[in-house]
């Protein structure tokens, strides 16, 4: 189905099932431990052996020698695969660094071997017997020292640099100006389920039971790396215990399980050990950002500029921190610039709203600072500078844009008018209390997505698509979509996901999964409805599918009868025309945060948070809310604690486990509220929905930062905002 004109009324608009707050249909499986994650799929292949991954001990250099002798002779060892004996491996397009390193080492903990043994313990013990001699080389590990050498680079959503009007002149002429530098650290996905794969070969055909967000990408990528035909690789990933962008691409677990299984001539399972996760896989790269804003005395932005520096391995990508600044606020004179430095740290890549998440961390502090310079309320300052068109291309309106409504609604609900604009003035016992706000912004991405739908003789509708559910609720909203389209209750729909044998979907990433995958299911259901109507001799445009029946005029036929013994199936997908070119499609929100800062110790604790989001039709308010409050929690992590600390001598992330890399615990998140504004976006898809998950993280950290400033009067521009950055400037408590 080609979607190239705005959606009109369709069966989804009935909203009998779609839009309802159903609990996740996979919830009982997860809460009872019966949803098997990749490493637990003991039944899919017999006689599974265990692989243990050895990571490089240096940040950059070469393996001068590797002695496998003792390890090979250790009890239970079946095979040891290294770059030396793995055979020729292709280079995929999705990863920058090789998944199996050696002799060249590109980054710390790059996999250099997998030891396969009968038991996990044997594999682990043998891995410790491998002796490696390294020839270390000097690497580049310090972004701040390399900004001068950084080169222009595009970002995922477009060019790296843009310019409209005469920024320099307008900024120089502006009566009120801000010019500030911000930094965000390297961050880790730190998902609960590590990368894990069971691999089995049957002849030259490979099956990978794995944990992955993007099935079709990765089946193709693995075929390239292993140099086998694409159709010979099957991926199956029905349950994913968190990905956050870290499982968009194949990682060492999948390759090493495949190579280990080939060498051991047995199915092999590999889970990346937790201490390897942080340096072996990808991470969100650190940024240094400079923001300049010029405004008239009454608060109209006349010039806005955003520059960002990040680093990556040769051939890597720049963080897209400037992306939102092209679209969020008005201003006639504008510039953005992206610079990429070469670093020898592990590969930087997508993580939790890549681009906007880091960019909003800086931009939304800058807006708070600018409002203060202007003597304006920061919410009013944002409202004043709203735009309903793409400021770089004013001929492009936003398809829907309710930023102002989100800000106003949120301010009202939160009690923003009780905020004291003078920082450091509100005290509650030992706590200095402050409020902060920020806009939320994330683009809506359209990408084709297909599904197969089958109605059987017992009236069960089965949906198959390689879409993944990474804890987001895909199973549920896909079932809701099919139920709505086919006129059956939710429990009559079965959803099967994550198998590369199924039609290719959008996959999960960039908050594109929900809208696109359900639109694909919509398309397949339209086709199935047509087939059923045709079979029954109904005019398909008149046929109504409701309450388990097909109805047209006076005729009513139960779906069970329509399906017949053999059942009836259809397959289709959604593809997009140029509506996204004509209309800027984005999602909007507003974050409000209240923090307490201990007057003595400067410990920062969030007291309450509130978000209001406008993100098209909300397909399931319960699962969407879960995603947004989860994203808000991640925003608190980014604001207050998440940081991969670089050892700039040895070139690695030091705090590479879940004790050292802190993320919020329950006690850090006492109270969250979130609300969706009514919105349908007919430009986005027949579902009239948009992405929603990553919107929830964009801006949160800045709202926390602004609240900390309001509480203490101490402005911190370098994340995470830890107490040591406040302490010196805290009020004296005697």
């Amino acid at each position, binding site marked *: 189905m080609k979607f190239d004109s705005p959606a009109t009324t369709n069966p989804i608009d009935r909203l009998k099932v779609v839009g309802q707050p159903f609990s996740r249909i996979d919830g009982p499986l997860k809460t009872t431990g019966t949803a098997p994650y990749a490493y637990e799929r003991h039944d899919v292949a017999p006689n599974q052996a265990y692989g243990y991954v050895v990571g490089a001990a240096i940040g950059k250099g070469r393996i001068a020698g590797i002695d496998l002798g003792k390890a090979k002779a250790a009890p239970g060892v079946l095979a040891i695969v290294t770059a030396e004996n793995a055979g020729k491996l292709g280079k995929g397009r999705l990863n920058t660094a090789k998944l199996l390193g050696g002799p060249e080492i590109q980054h710390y903990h790059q996999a250099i071997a997998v030891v396969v043994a009968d038991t996990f313990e044997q594999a682990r013990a043998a891995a410790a017997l491998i002796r490696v001699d390294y020839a270390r080389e000097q690497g580049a590990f310090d972004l701040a020292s390399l900004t001068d050498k950084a080169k222009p680079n595009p970002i995922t959503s477009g060019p790296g640099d843009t310019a409209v009007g005469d920024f320099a002149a307008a900024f120089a002429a502006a009566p009120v100006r801000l010019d500030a530098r911000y930094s965000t650290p390297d961050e880790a996905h730190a998902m609960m389920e590590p990368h894990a794969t069971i691999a089995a070969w049957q002849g030259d055909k490979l099956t990978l039971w794995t944990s992955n967000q993007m099935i079709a990408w990765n089946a193709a990528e693995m075929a390239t790396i292993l140099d086998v035909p694409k159709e010979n690789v099957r991926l199956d990933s029905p349950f994913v215990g968190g990905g956050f962008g870290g499982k968009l691409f194949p990682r060492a677990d999948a390759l090493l399980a495949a190579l280990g299984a080939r060498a051991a001539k047995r199915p092999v399972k590999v889970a990346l050990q937790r201490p390897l996760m942080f340096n072996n896989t990808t991470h969100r790269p650190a940024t240094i950002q400079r923001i300049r804003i010029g405004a008239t005395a009454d608060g109209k932005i006349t010039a806005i500029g955003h520059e960002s520096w990040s680093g990556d391995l040769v051939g890597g990508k720049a963080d897209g921190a400037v992306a939102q600044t092209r679209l969020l606020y008005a201003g006639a004179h504008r510039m953005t610039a992206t610079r990429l430095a070469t670093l020898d740290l592990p590969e930087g890549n997508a993580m939790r709203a890549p681009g906007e998440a880091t960019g909003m961390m800086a931009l939304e502090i800058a807006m708070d600072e600018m409002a203060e310079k202007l003597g304006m309320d920061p919410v009013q300052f944002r409202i004043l500078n709203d735009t309903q068109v793409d400021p770089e291309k004013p001929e492009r309106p936003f398809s829907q844009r309710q930023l102002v409504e989100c800000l106003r609604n949120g301010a009202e609900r939160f009690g923003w008018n009780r905020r004291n604009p003078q920082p450091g003035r509100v005290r509650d016992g030992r706590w200095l209390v402050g409020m902060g706000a920020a806009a939320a912004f994330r683009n809506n991405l359209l990408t084709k997505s297909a599904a197969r739908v089958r109605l059987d003789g017992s009236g069960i509708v089965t949906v198959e698509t390689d879409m993944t559910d990474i804890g987001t609720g895909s199973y549920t909203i896909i079932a809701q979509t099919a139920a709505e389209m086919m006129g059956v209750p939710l429990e009559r729909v079965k959803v099967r996901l994550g198998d590369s044998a199924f039609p290719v979907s959008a996959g999960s990433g960039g908050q594109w999964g929900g809208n696109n995958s359900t639109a694909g299911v919509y398309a397949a259901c339209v086709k199935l409805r047509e087939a059923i109507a045709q079979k029954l001799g109904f005019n398909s445009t008149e046929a109504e599918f409701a309450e388990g029946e097909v109805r047209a005029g006076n005729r009513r036929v139960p779906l069970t009868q329509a399906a017949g013994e053999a059942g009836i199936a259809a397959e289709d997908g959604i593809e997009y025309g140029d509506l996204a070119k004509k209309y800027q499609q984005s999602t909007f929100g507003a974050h409000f945060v209240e923090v307490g800062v201990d007057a003595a110790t*400067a410990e920062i604790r969030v007291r309450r948070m509130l978000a209001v989001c406008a993100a098209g039709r909300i397909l399931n308010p319960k699962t969407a809310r879960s995603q947004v409050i989860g994203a808000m929690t991640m925003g608190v992590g980014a604001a*207050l604690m998440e940081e991969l600390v670089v050892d700039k001598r040895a070139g690695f992330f030091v705090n590479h486990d879940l004790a050292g890399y802190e993320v919020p*615990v329950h006690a850090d998140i006492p109270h969250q509220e979130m609300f969706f504004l009514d919105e349908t976006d007919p430009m986005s898809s027949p579902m009239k929905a948009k992405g929603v998950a990553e919107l929830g993280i964009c801006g949160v950290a800045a709202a926390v930062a602004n609240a900390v400033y309001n509480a203490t009067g101490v402005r911190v521009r370098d994340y995470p905002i830890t*107490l040591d950055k406040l302490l010196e400037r805290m009020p004296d408590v005697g």
Partner: protein
Amino acid sequence: MKSFSYERARTPAEAAASALRRPDAKFIAGGTNLLDLMKLEIETPAHLVDVNGLALDKIEATPEGGLRIGALLRNTDLAADARVRRDYAVLSRALLAGASGQLRNKATTAGNLLQRTRCPYFYDTNQPCNKRRPGSGCGAIGGFSRQHAVIGASEACIATHPSDMAVAMRALDATVEAVRPDGTQRTIPIADFHRLPGDTPHIETTLQPGELITAVTLPKPVGGAHVYRKVRDRASYAFALVSVAAIVQRDGTGRVALGGVAHKPWRVEAADAELPRGARAVAAQLLANARPTKDNAFKLALAERTIGAALSEAKG
């Protein structure tokens, strides 16, 4: 993990004798730290002596009016004991500030005292660490040292002791009871139990080979207001940047010990004497010879401010 042999000891003396016979042996109780370290081959005992069956999990009154806490009493049970909550509240509060409910359910009194540092360079076997591999150097010096010691450290090691419980015990003047391999008993004041790193950071306590902790004894209650303040980046389940155990009497005298600043719970008697003069004076004595790193210099100001907060809390 290296393969190891395993035995269940029947008496404390037998456990100690068994450990002495095998210099590569380790006692195992809750295992919350040791098993992690064995998986990473940071600890590589060839023999484990399981002491869980030794019935050392009681808590009882001493003739002196104090409490004798069994070495195997679980942290959860110790924190919840009514006598501890009433008379030694600083200990209960310190315990509850540490780890998580699940860990406290497993972790024991003696195991808590013997837990090893959480220095990330200690945990990464690719990195130099004099504590893990004597003579290999210290990765933390000149590296990431935000969590590390500001006082009592050495050129060989700047690790901290991670325990909260031990900080409270230091403030309470606890004594550690141990049984020697020959079956005789000895007591070690908590002040002398943990060592400073010096040039042997791998030797962390004054226990002799084979010696097994059987109990920790608290003297009779000293009264006063009991405060434990633990400062950390998140609200729970994190090691202390700085912690303060304070016992303050109505007249302003008392005791104070610090956690998160040294290789052992840190208490200086001369600092106790400064308590009536306030946090600044106390901190000046406690941290008189501090040598922080660039990353952790903030701990000096933080310690002073946290002592101040603890004293305010004690005043009520």
